[in-house]
């Protein structure tokens, strides 16, 4: 009787374990690939992962692709030293010592290009500003001139007790000729 009970218990545990292993869904599998490669998963999760890997074709191909790519990172390293590197560093240090600090700022080609572009933009802005300002001053001057002319006429009209209207300039002139 006890043998039978223990056998049933063993079978139940076995079935539960199998069910647990097959529990992992494709979404969970995809989320755990990197942790499986890095051996960050606990034993149970790793077993579930492996079980899913064996039984799901699409996840298997995805895993193979991801594994190959992830392994590439580890292989993409600089392992050889450059025998000329020290001389290169020393040459740069010597060059820096020789170059005056102010010129060091302009040592890089890109920096010069950047500086030149900024300078051109600033100069263009100044030039445009000057042009706009000049036009405005010119217009103001013209306006002033017109104003002076008008005020002369105003003075004339005032001295002769005439009502002066800007639009009636020709009218006043006609009156003058009549006199």
């Amino acid at each position, binding site marked *: 009787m006890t043998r039978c009970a223990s056998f049933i218990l063993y079978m139940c545990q076995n079935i539960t374990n199998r069910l647990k292993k097959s529990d992992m869904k494709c979404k969970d599998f*995809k*989320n755990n*690939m*990197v*942790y499986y490669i*890095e051996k*960050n998963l606990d034993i149970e999760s790793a077993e579930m992962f492996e079980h899913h890997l064996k039984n799901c074709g699409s996840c298997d191909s*995805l895993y193979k*692709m*991801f594994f*190959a*790519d*992830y392994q*590439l*990172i*580890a*292989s*993409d*390293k*600089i*392992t*050889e*030293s*450059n025998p000329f*590197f*020290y001389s*290169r*560093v020393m040459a*740069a*240090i010597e060059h*820096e010592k020789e170059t005056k600090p102010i010129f060091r700022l302009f040592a890089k080609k*890109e920096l010069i*290009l*950047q500086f030149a*572009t900024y300078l051109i933009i600033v100069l263009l802005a100044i030039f445009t500003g000057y042009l706009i300002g000049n036009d405005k001053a010119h217009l103001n001057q013209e306006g002033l001139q017109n104003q002076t002319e008008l005020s002369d006429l105003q003075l004339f009209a005032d001295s002769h007790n005439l009502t002066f209207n800007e639009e009636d300039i020709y009218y006043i002139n006609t009156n003058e000729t009549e006199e």
Partner: protein
Amino acid sequence: MEDLLLIEEITKNKPGAFQQLVEKYQTLVINTCYGFLHNYQDAQDVAQEVFIDVYRSIEKFRNESKISTWLYRISVNKSLNYIRDNKKRTWFQSLDILFETEFKTGSSNSLSESPEEIIENKEKMDVIQQAIDKLAKNQKIAFTLYKYEDLSYKEIADVMNISISSVESLLFRAKKNLQKQLISLYKKND
């Protein structure tokens, strides 16, 4: 030679001492920079700047941390600055960059690979590098030090001046994000 002794000799201007330091640590510095920049020439340029900085400020080095930790910190900062400046510079980049023939040495199995395999791997690496570049700054630093330099969590924590648990969390998120990005790239390519 012990690092401390080496530094002492460099500060005393002893001939050959600085050369020893450069030769001992050049692979470490170049490889770290390469992990961020993904270009051998750029990595060498930045590594050169790192050693110039070391030469200039060796007297400021405090013996509180290892010299390798100090070198990692300078390399990481210089590389990130280079990336930042390079982004700004892209507008000013001249056409000759288009014709620049990029070469890289040190790839562990480049000699045994066929040209097709090299091209295929280069394309794959570009995709992976794009995914790494999209990681948040701290995740990228932790992941690069972990993957390119095989540093332990403790060493990464020392370089980044953070706790080990923070490193664990950063790496966990970095791996997750990288996996997510690669899977979405596969979906796009299908």
